[in-house]
Every structure is written in C-alpha cells, then in structure tokens.
C-alpha cells in the first residue's frame, strides 16, 4: 500500500456539507418528491403468523374504486424472490404466509389515501396452521419443516482443546443471556419511487444504503439485465442497517406496480407499517461455560449462540458469522469453542442492524465476565484487564493480533477518568448498608468490546470493489463511489480523504450522488467499511490522479507550468503545486484545466487490495477474520429508584480507539449516538409478542430514549492507527452499539444487586429477576425478596 499523504483536511471538523439543507428543510427526501403522473402503492399484509392463503378477492376494492390495480404472487413476471444470500424471501406470499405483516398483495391508486383504503378492502381468506412463534418453539421443532429444528444458518469455531481447558480450571462459571428485538427507528421510514421507462428499463429512486443491492435484487425479480435497472439514491434519513436489506423488497413492490400500470409509483411507509413489516435486530440466546484459573485467567470458553432469524434467511448467515467471531469478547483464551445457529420462527425476518450480531454475543460475553469476577471476588475492571488482548495474542480463529490493539489503553483511560475500581467498591459497600430513605441508589458498570472493521473474512477480496476518481470537464475532482450518505457523514469524510490524497482542499472535491449509471459498485454502505476500506482505495486513486497531473505539469508540452527538467520531486498541497524547496509553481486548477483542454476528462479507477498476510478460511473459520479491530471501553453511571426500579443514567465515559478520526466531531457523534442506541437497547427498547404479532408496533409503545434519558457523555477518541485503513482509520459506525447494554446491566447490578440476565432490563424485568432470586449471592444471604410494599 502506498504511504498515505500527510493529512491536512483529514482530522479537521468542518461544518457538514449537507447540514444546512437538512436543518432548514431544503433537503428533499423521497416523500418530498413528486414525479408527473405518479400513483401510490399500498400493501395488503397477513394478520397471521402461519397460514395457508385460500383466496384473495379484490372485488370490494374494485367496486369502491374502479381505478385501483393490484398484484399478487400469481402475477409476477420473474422469480418470486428478494435475492439476498439465499432465495427464500418471497416478494409476495404465494401459498402460505410465514409471519404477521407479510405482504400478500400490493395495490396502486392515484392517491395514497385511496391506495390504503383499497388495501383495506382486499379480502383474503386464510387457514391458520401451526407455527414456531418463539425461540422456545423453534428449539422444540418447526412445523414448517415437519417438526425438525429449522436451522437457517450455522457457524462454528473450534480452537485449542476446550474439554481439557475446562478440566484444568479452578472454577467453572456458567451463564445464559438473552437479548430481544431492536427496531432501527431511522427518522425517515422506508420509501421508494419506481419510474418505468419507454425502453423497458426502470428507474428506482429512494431511501437506501446500498443502490447496487437494490439493482441486483430487482434485475433478478424482474428478469432484466442489471443495466436495465437504474437505482438512484436520494437524501436518506438514517439507516442503521435497516436500509441494507429491506429496500430490495420495497423497490421490487414499487417497480412491479409501476411496470404494471406504466406510471411512476411511490410507496412510503408510515411509522406503524415500517415497524410492523421491516427487519429487526435478531433476538439471541447465548450460553457460556468458562473455565477460569484461580488468578482469574480464562482457560476455556464453551459458547453456544442461538439467534432468532425470523421467517426467512435474509442476511442471517453473515450476522451469525460476526456474532460468532466476536462471541468470546476481546479476551485471550487458549481454548475456545463457539457454536452458532440461526433458527427460523414465524416472525418478521430479522436482518442487518448496526453491530450485526456482535452486540448480542458481546452482551453475553461481557455479562459473563462480570459473573466470573463476582465468583472469584475480582472487580469488573481487574478481571478484564487480566484477560484483555494485547499485541501478539491469538484470537479463536487463530489470528495473531500484530498491531493496533488498544483494549488495555481504553480500559486504563476509562479508569483514570472515573476512578472506577474505587467507586465501584464504594457502591458495593453502600448497597449492603443502604438506608430505606427512598433516595436513588447509585451504580457503576463497565464493558470492554472489540469490533472487526469491514466485511468478515474474504468479503472484500470477493467483492473486489472498484472506485473511481474523475477529473471532470470543469477541472474539478469527482468522487464516484456507491457509498451513500444517510446521516452518518459519508459525503464529508470522502471529501476530506480524497482532498488530502490528491493534494487539494475539500472544497475542490465533488462527491457524486450514488446512482448506478454514474458510480461504480464500490460495495454496500455497511459493516463500518466506508472510511476504512472505500476510503483506502480512494486514497490510492487520488494519489494516482495527482501523480498523473504532476507528470503532465512537469513534462507535457501543454503544461502551463515551467519547472525546468532538473525538478524531480513535485508536490500538490492544498491546491498548489510545489517544488522540492516548497516554492509554489502553479495552481492545481490551472494544471487541471490545461490537462482537460488537451486530453479531456481523466478517470482513475482502483480496486480493493488485501493487506499481505490477511487470509481467512471460511470453511474452517481459521485466519484473519478482519484486517483490523476497533476497541472500546464504556463506563456507565446510573441511579435506580429503590421503589420503582426505574433506571436513570447520569454519566457515560466512552473511550474508543478509532485508528484515526477523519472528522473528529462526526466521529464523536457516531460514538455518542451509537451509545445512546445501545443504551436504549439495554434498558428500554422492547418488543413483546402476542400470538406472533409485535405488541409494541408504534412509537407510543416502542420506547426509545429521549434527550432526558441521555446521560452526560465524556468521550475520548484514541488514535492507534492500522496500516489497513485509510489514514490509519478503523470502522467507527458499529462498535458504539456493542458495549452500552452490558455496561448498563453491570451498573444496575452494582446499584441494586439484581443480576439481570437479559435485555431490555426494564423495571418490570428487574422486578421479576429480583423476585426470582437473581441477585448477587452475598445479597441473597440477606433479604432478597422484599414483601410487596415492604422494605427492600
């Protein structure tokens, strides 16, 4: 890899380019767009978790509104499948429905109101059949596959000799941990417009993370060549993974309707429909047996990860893969066995969500560390410090961590800022002698996590993503990649990185809006890969562009610069061409204009190049699972109302190694926003199921934190660079999702003695945990179960 140029734009927190438009309301989201002649689509959904479809009758809908048109599975022009990893997710349910909210038919009408009214008037008759509604049902066997356990995906890691390690241990600690669903609540619900073209192609405009995923899925569904499906990204209000998979489905619905009625069709969900129908974070159940030496060193970990995949495979195999690889936490252990499975249930398919399986498995890993610490009488900080990865340690896939390992540094910085050990112990003592004065009890909790940046294993090699940098007709530098902006700041950081690579200012860089006819398939905007991976390729392309222009300046007859034959080393810096002595020879814009006048536009295209020695065997799960890892320590301080068990978070100390903060303010924004999402996941956000349907299907009942639930945050960015990322950067988008939940539960335990095994740790759950005797064992000796209304 070429040496990165000396940063100038990188590392600065300039105002966001898209900020003004978004704050003033000038930005146009899909629901703001109107295409002439456009109609609106609406969806008929299953009320049952498992049923046979007996009939679909549109007569009432047509009588009420004769203009209405409709499509069922029987009308599809191509395969009835939303193509992701497997081909099992139907665009419209054909003979059977497998979850509440599954699309059975789509209708279209001149207005949204008429379309929704028509959908309500479609009469579908069903015969209900038995299903596997919960993970417990799924573990017993799924009627859909004749009562077998319906495994959608599995992944295993086997490292060392776990049985021997357990046999050698002084202590065996066992724990079982549960996590629930999480809904993305991106601020803009899903929305798409499909515009049919005269040549038989179709244009898709919408809210999404991955334009090329939509193109591939639609080309398959419509039996078209990919270039007959043009996909254009517009201002998108958040994604968090939820706009990685589902836009393929919604795009297919819009395109099918548009091609049928030969008009543009828009479908935009309202919040309720979005929650009812779209993918969620996989619920999980993780069981861990750990063998520990008397001094607290881990000797063996035997881990079983079960994820609830919902009704279809969608992205479950890759979510599981990441869950499994992170399941032992950031801790060295010579013997590790991890067995992972995703089981099918009759619920909405679970899919991509920030963290992608790692938050679930690391929740379990972190709670297990607390449990081990309690058993051995070691505080949460010390048990982690004793076991955390250092440079030279080997992970359960056999990857030797050679550089950029900051677990200890993160821990130590967090300890310094909070005096964690001392104060944790104070709260432990206070708990034992808490007066019954109704005052809130305080607690501190800690977590330590790691998160692999970019695609797992050989994903990047396989995609071999191209990026293009173009010197355009106007002599400006264009970035052409498929990386989308959905609030996380992509446009800004791409501008900064390319500016430094070329040697111009950020204002000289134009980031072209992702559109499949304009940008190459540089891969999806997922997996915290944009800065580190796409950025890395762009830096090479940018250097290439600069080299070519400097060559031109130096030796071409058309060069506007006279720098004499003896000048060897030229440099472009902030838009100026300098010689070895630093004297300005000319400006980038003059050189670029002269180049374009003589030779026309210039495209530099580069592709992913793996770091030497980074290899992974996907069969055996051996090798470098990721080329670099981010590290983070979260410390949460909170208060618990002793009467109601209501938790209020007061302070968060967030120490994150991000490799390099390209835009420090946005980087902190990722850490703080992601942490809040993680905290909500830990103690608030809950979906309960009733007869296979989500009960919490509105924002009135799906409770996310408001600013009043948000702790003060002390955020520290550590920059321990990796040679595998642009400017040393590692992914920062997802790691903030990993540590919040376990840290909250650790703090609740410190405050109340309640050992909550699962999340969300709502007051109701804490109450039932306490009633069930799930309290720290020295507390149990006293009065664990307060009488109702009696003293705690």
């Amino acid at each position: 890899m070429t040496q990165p140029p000396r940063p100038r734009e990188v590392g600065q927190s300039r105002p966001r380019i898209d900020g003004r438009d978004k704050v003033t309301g000038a930005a146009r989201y899909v629901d703001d767009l109107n295409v002439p002649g456009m109609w609106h689509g609406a969806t008929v959904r299953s009320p049952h978790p498992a049923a046979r479809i007996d009939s679909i009758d549109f007569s009432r809908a047509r009588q009420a509104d004769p203009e209405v048109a409709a499509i069922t599975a029987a009308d599809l022009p191509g395969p009835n499948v939303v193509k992701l990893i497997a081909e099992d997710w139907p665009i419209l349910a054909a003979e059977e429905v497998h979850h509440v909210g599954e699309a059975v038919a789509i209708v279209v009408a001149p207005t949204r109101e008429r379309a929704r009214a028509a959908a309500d008037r479609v009469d579908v008759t069903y015969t209900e059949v038995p299903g596997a509604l919960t993970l417990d049902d799924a573990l017993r066997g799924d009627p859909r596959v004749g009562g077998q356990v319906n495994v959608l995906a599995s992944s295993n890691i086997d490292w060392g000799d776990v049985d021997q390690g357990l046999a050698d241990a002084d202590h065996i600690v066992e724990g079982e941990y549960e996590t629930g669903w999480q809904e993305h609540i991106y601020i803009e619900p899903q929305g798409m417009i499909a515009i049919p073209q005269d040549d038989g192609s179709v244009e898709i405009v919408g809210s999404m993370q991955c334009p090329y995923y939509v193109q591939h899925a639609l080309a398959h569904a419509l039996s078209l060549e990919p270039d007959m499906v043009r996909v254009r990204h517009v201002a998108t209000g958040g994604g968090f993974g939820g706009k990685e998979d589902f836009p393929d489905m919604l795009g297919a619905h819009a395109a099918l309707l548009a091609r049928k009625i030969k008009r543009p069709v828009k479908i935009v969900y309202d919040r309720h429909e979005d929650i009812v129908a779209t993918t969620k974070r996989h619920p999980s159940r993780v069981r861990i047996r750990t063998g520990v030496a008397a001094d607290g060193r881990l000797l063996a970990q035997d881990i079983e990860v079960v994820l609830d995949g919902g009704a279809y495979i969608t992205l479950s195999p890759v979510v599981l893969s990441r869950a499994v690889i992170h399941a032992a936490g950031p801790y060295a252990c010579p013997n590790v066995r991890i067995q992972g499975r995703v089981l099918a249930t009759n619920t909405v398919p679970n899919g991509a969500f920030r963290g992608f399986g790692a938050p679930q498995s690391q929740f379990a890993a972190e709670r297990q560390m607390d449990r081990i610490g309690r058993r051995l009488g070691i505080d949460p900080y010390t048990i982690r410090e004793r076991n955390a990865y250092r440079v030279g340690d080997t992970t359960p896939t056999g990857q030797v961590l050679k550089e950029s390992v900051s677990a200890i540094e993160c821990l130590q910085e967090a300890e310094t800022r909070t005096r964690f050990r001392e104060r944790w112990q104070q709260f432990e003592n206070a708990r034992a002698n808490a007066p019954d004065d109704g005052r809130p009890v305080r607690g501190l909790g800690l977590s330590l996590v790691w998160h692999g940046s970019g695609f797992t294993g050989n994903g990047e090699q396989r995609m071999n993503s191209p990026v293009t940098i173009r010197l355009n007709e106007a002599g400006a530098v264009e970035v052409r990649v498929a990386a989308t902006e959905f609030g996380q700041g992509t446009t800004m950081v791409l501008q900064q990185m390319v500016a430094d690579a070329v040697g111009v200012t950020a204002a000289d860089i134009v980031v072209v809006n992702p559109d499949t006819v304009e940008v190459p398939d540089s891969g999806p905007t997922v997996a915290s890969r944009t800065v580190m991976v796409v950025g890395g390729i762009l830096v090479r392309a940018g250097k290439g562009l600069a080299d070519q222009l400097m060559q031109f300046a130096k030796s071409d007859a058309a060069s506007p610069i006279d720098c004499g034959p003896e000048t060897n080393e030229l440099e472009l810096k902030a838009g100026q061409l300098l010689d070895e002595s630093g004297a300005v020879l000319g400006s980038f814009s003059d050189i670029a204009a002269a180049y374009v006048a003589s030779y026309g536009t210039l495209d530099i295209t580069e592709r992913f190049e793996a770091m030497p020695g980074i290899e992974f065997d996907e069969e055996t799960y051996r090798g470098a699972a990721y080329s670099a890892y981010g590290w983070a320590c979260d410390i949460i301080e909170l208060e618990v109302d002793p009467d109601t068990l209501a938790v209020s978070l007061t302070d968060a100390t967030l120490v994150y190694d991000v490799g390099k903060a390209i835009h420090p303010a946005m980087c902190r924004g990722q850490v703080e926003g992601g942490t809040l999402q993680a905290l909500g996941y830990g103690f608030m956000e809950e979906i309960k199921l009733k007869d296979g349907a989500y009960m919490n299907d509105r924002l009135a009942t799906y409770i996310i934190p408001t600013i009043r639930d948000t702790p003060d945050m002390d955020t520290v960015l550590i920059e321990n660079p990796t040679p595998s990322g642009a400017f040393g950067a590692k992914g920062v988008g997802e790691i903030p999702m990993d540590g919040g939940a376990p840290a909250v539960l650790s703090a609740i335990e410190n405050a109340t003695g309640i050992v909550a095994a699962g999340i969300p740790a709502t007051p109701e759950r804490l109450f039932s945990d306490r009633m069930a005797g799930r309290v720290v064992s020295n507390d149990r000796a006293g009065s664990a179960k307060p009488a109702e209304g009696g003293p705690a």
Partner: protein
Amino acid sequence: MTLAYTPSNLDEALQILADHPDTVLVAGCTDLMVVDYAMGRRHDAVLDLLAVPELHGIAVSDDAISIGATTKFREILNHAEVQKNYPMLAEVAGTVGGWQIQNRATIGGNIANASPAGDSLPVLLALGAQVEVRGAAGPRIIPYEAMHLGYRRVDLRPGELITRVRIQKPAANTVQMYKKVGTRAAQAISKVVVGLCATIVDDSVAEIRIGAGSVAATPVRLDRTEARVRGARLEPSLADEAGRIASTEVAPIDDVRSTAEYRSFVLGRVVRRMLLNMISGETGPNSTAGSGS
C-alpha cells in the same frame, strides 16, 4: 370532507351540539389526532372548543380555583395560585408528555379522553375536584368520583361538554404528593400514577384521599388504604401496612407497557413512600417523570 364549526361563544357551541349531535369536540387534539390516524378515521363534523372563550382560563377565588376545560397544561403549570396552593396540580401538568404536548393538551381533553393512564385524573380525585358540564338542558356539577363510569366512559350526556373543573382550596395543614411512574423520563405514558392529599393533625392523619391511575379500567380512589390510614397515627408501621393494602386492593392487568405484578408492587411502594415522606417531612416533588419546567 369535514365540516369544522368555530363557535364564538358557549351558547353557540351548545346550540351546534344540540342541532348536530354527532359533531366531534376538538380541544388540543393531542388524543384525537393519534386515535383518528391509527384507526384511519375521519369525522363529518368537528367543533373547535379552543374558539370558545368561556372555556378557557383559570379563575381564582378565596376558597377555590376554577379551571376552564380548554386550559392547557402549560398554563396550569405556570399559574402562581396553582403553584402556591395546588402544587400537585402544577406538578402533574409538568409531567404530561413533553413541552410540545403541554402547550396544546387541555385538562378537559384529559378528563374526557378518560384513559386509565390520564395523569391528571388521580390528582383530581385526590384533590376532591368537581367537574362542571353543560348541555342544552343547563349545567350539572359532578363530583370527580362519579365522573368515570367505566373504561374510557365518562358521565357526559349527548349534547354536553365539560366547561370547568373546580377545586376547593386545601386546608393549610394539607400535604399533596404526586408520583408518576412512566416508561421513560419524558413523553411517557404512566404505568402507575398516584396523587395523594392528606390533612395532618397532631401527627395523625385526619383526612386522606389517594387517587391512582393505570391500575384499573378507570382512575380509582384507594378506599381500603385510605380507611386504614384515616385517623391513624403516622408511623413507619402504618406506611408499611398502607403499602401492603394498596398493592392488594387493585387488580391491574398485563399490557404492552407493564405487568400486573409490577404495577401492584409499585403502587404499594409508592404509597408507602409517600407516608414515610410525610413522617420525615419530605413532601416535595417526587416525580420520576417530571418533564422540564
């Protein structure tokens, strides 16, 4: 198409209601909007109560206040007399929704909507409020205990609307306590909400009224708890016992927001804590869900 009436006075409003009994009353619309959208419901005719001047504002007299039905919670929260003599009412007003909701939501709408989780309702029970309603046949005065007939049903006859809420000024030796147990720190619907009003004479509880919400189909008075406490000497064992009675005298349900067990438990804990605080003299604000005043 929806017809919207904007009457310029109360008589006109009552006349419209008498002539068009299906007209839907709209005040702040913070409840109506939510239900209408969720149900895909449209109305043929609505009447804008905010247009009726007689229904708005707080009138203070020596021995009572009278709050117009369309008075917003934020106006109640900021009102000097309410803050001075009816602090529990100011406190509850500050826990309804968030600022935006408090700027629109009315006390009349809270009563008429009659959600078991309506936050002001247990407080009105505890303060012994009276509701003034009026129809073409004239006014009626309804003691708050008699206002809620069943789940989301209030004692309003066709053509009647709520005009005012009247509250007698509490005696000087009265303590008022309020606690909202919501699903988060703001914009939260109550899982349990309690208002308590007690008069203390010589370390004994001379009179007490406890209203509780979200623990039954309607807001309820905790009669058995009150009976045990009334006339009794204030001491910790009384608080424990009152808590125990409170947690057993209601039969709450499991729903999307909470569980029956938790609600019973918390009701008992809250009542107990209020009595303990009376003993220790700590009667100040004690909400978990104050939402920014």
